[in-house]
């Protein structure tokens, strides 16, 4: 497990929900898949700890942003899949626009200050 020694970036607080929602916006996915996907797409810069991922998924279930269902994984294993709900889609749009505003603002401050 060579990656353990590589420098790793913590996911900025508050953005984990957004990342999960974004991943799920492309289709249903299980917990392991979500973590893998974030790692792959971010080119190994971002890594989700299982210890944060599963509690976060529970909170999203409570909020009603995602649903869970059991399904068959790629290699024929029973896995719990998470799906976006309409409320989750709305939440994603909201989080994205907020994130963009914040990033834009931070970028401006960095460039112009």
């Amino acid at each position, binding site marked *: 497990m060579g990656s353990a020694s590589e420098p790793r970036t913590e996911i900025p607080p508050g953005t984990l929900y957004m990342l999960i929602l974004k991943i799920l916006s492309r289709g249903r996915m299980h917990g392991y898949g979500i973590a893998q996907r974030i790692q792959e797409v971010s080119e190994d810069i971002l890594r989700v700890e299982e210890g944060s991922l599963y509690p976060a998924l529970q*909170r999203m279930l409570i909020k009603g942003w995602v649903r869970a269902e059991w399904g068959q994984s790629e290699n024929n294993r029973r896995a719990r899949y998470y799906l976006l709900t309409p409320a989750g889609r709305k939440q994603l749009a909201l989080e994205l626009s907020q994130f963009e505003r914040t990033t834009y603002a931070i970028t401006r401050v960095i460039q112009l200050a």
Partner: protein
Amino acid sequence: MHFGELWRRLSMFFRMRQFRADMDEELRSHLAMKAADLRETGVEDNQARHAAQVRLGNPTLLREKSEDAWGWTAADALLQDLRYALRILKKSPAFTTTALLTLALGIGANTAIFSLINAVMLRSMPVRGPGRLVQLAKFWGGQRSNLSYPLYRFFRDHARSFDGMLAQSWPVEHEIALGGAAETLHAQMVSGNYYQVLGLRAAAGHLLMQNDDRVPGSSPYAVISYRYWQRRFLLNPSVIGKTFILNRTVFTIIGVTPKEFFGTMPGHDPDMTFPLSMDAQVNVELNKGKSWLAEDHTNWLYAIGRLKAGISLKQAEAESRVLFQDRVRADAAREKDDRGRAAVLAQTLSLEPAAAGLDSLRVRFSEPLLFLMCIVGLVLLLACINLSSLLVGRAFNRSREVSVRIAVGAGRGRLVRQFLAESFVLALGGGVLGIALAQLLCPLMIALMANGEEFVLPVHPDLRVLAFTAIISLGTTVAVGLAPALYATRLNVTPGLKEMRTTGRKNVFKILIVAQIAISLLLLIGASLFVRTLINLRTLDMGFRREGVLVFSIDSDKAGYRGERLRNLQATMINHLDAVLRVRSASSILVLMLSGGGWNGAVEVEGYTYRRDENNQADLNEVGPKFFRTMGTPILMGRDFDSRDLPSSPKVAIVNESFARHYFGNQSALGKHVNGDVIVGIVKDSKYQSLRETFPRIVYFPALQDASPQSWTNYLVRVDAGQALRLLPAVREVVKQIDPALEITSPTTLSDVVDKSILNERILASLSSIFALIAMVLSCFGIFGVMSSYVARRTNEFGIRFALGARRNDVLLDVLSEVALVLVAGVFIGLIASVSVTRVARGLLFDLKPTDPLAFAVAALLLSGAALIAGYLPARRAAQIDPVDALRAE
């Protein structure tokens, strides 16, 4: 919280098991997928699985963290705690039963007293908008006074602050003939608008209406109460339209009041209401056939108004006062002299909230009830401390278990919760049993308060009572459980595991015992103050001998006796009663002393001029021949009334000492005139309206000289010896011989009349004694328990001491000195608390300081004696320890 979210959380609570299984499977599949991915990169199977596990961490912890998100962890832990508590309590049934019974008694007594306070002082009547109802309270020279019918009408028609104003009389007994049989019931006269102002709807038929008040004598209707309907007619609807006869008038039952309505006078539940317009027909006896409706000076009505929306009590009061003052000034202008005008002008008016009904019960019982509330509150507190000390003992015995749990990582908070769960289960059980017990205690209390009179008080537990019980049960939980919980978690892990003694334990016990002794002492001192008050009232010189006097009336009115015939009947009655075997003397009195009634009036005394501001009133009474001899009141000068005092002979009067001293000073009052009558006797002072009053100035007139004798006079028969009531059959015989149409009514004894006048004092003395004794017994059990375990723990040590030659008495004294130490501390604290607290009871004491040394000493000695006995039993056991056995057991 969003509704959907709440729903999801709630439904999760009931699928916890499923949730955990799902979560476990999800994590397993996560591990498997991770391992599979690693294998694909060429890692060996074993290593892959291991790496995946390392990466994931502790799956149980992860599952618990995920579970936490749903917010049910705490509730789940609580359920576990409660289940565990139940298991622990089931293991020691003796302890659990004692604890439950103690708490049931404490909580039950509190609930019962609170139910009464609720019914008497707090609960609103079940009428429309009770908060808008106000009572017109008229005061005359500081004394509460009722309203006359013309005054009521004046307010009803002129005050603009009200949406309506009702009036009602005091409920009295009437005899009616219904379906051919005579029966006695309680009835009240009410204004026609009574039910409209209250906003009530009939349970059957219809209620009285405004019009029923218009023309005197035109509305012979009656509305009956739900309970009378149930009792007498078994809720049969055909009761509507039934007729009955009352004083030769035929009345028709037109309706039934709602089930939850008990009238507007707490304590009374009139069976029937008549419109005020029927006064002359209903109250034939009382009014002598004359209607009180036109009487300006007969104050017999209670009035309740409904405030208009937006008008406050203060605004309405301001308006009513202006109206009232105008009227009073007009009345005063008609008086002949200054004194009369001053008397009329001494009237004032105020408005009082009447949501809970008229305040007669509140005035009578609120003070003793509040005291009883404090007393039972202290008893409950003591019961809690008592249980607490038992639980500390159990906590100590469980110190090994507790230490193990701490050692394996149980949080202290969780342990405190565990102990609180135990006391919560006890308090919950005690609370439920307590509510049941209160249902038994309330009727007993009501019977005590009723004292043989008509007294109806609905005390079914309402929300307020249940909330009260819930709150005190929760308080009980904390009071019982906190000390053992904190104590147990202070235990150190190592000594607990090694079964060594921990320090600090003895102090907890001592503090708890000291607190119990202090509270018991406070309760005992309170009880002895109330008992001494009762003794003082019972043994004080009331100016007559209360024992052995039979008191009764006869219904001469119904038999048609009036005027001179009535007077002759009274003379004959007394003569015949005198002749009965074992009767020493018989007489009569118009206003029976200490019966709640009174009669006073202005007196003009020969040779005496009043100062301008002086009160010219004296207490008056009318008595039969040989009255003072019958009562055992010494005649200081002159003579008793006798058969010489007839209408034709000179008018005479007898005055008491206080009267003579006030009006004549050192001069003799004999031969002087009062209101034109010549004074022929001076008698010793006696009580009239209450035992607590200072002796009033009384003028007695002879009944046989009264031009218009009253039918409601009381006959007095003094017996030679023994129970006065035993003479009742003989007396009945005499009355029948005089006229078979005559019946004896309300027979009683003078002793009972006196006792009735000190009802509150009797209730307080008896109940406070009972509760103080319960408290004392509880704390003695506490001492006994604690000392027993003290001796048990030191058996080994005592054995060694005996083996080394210690004497039995040394060990006995050693144990007893432990008891004496806590006893002295408890008594000291209890005394200090009592000195500062008993002051609040001053108004209820009589001829006694709130710090009465005798009461304090009796209480302290009683408690000390009981505590030493409780401590002596374990001490004796310690002294009888066999050293060989003790050492062998080790």
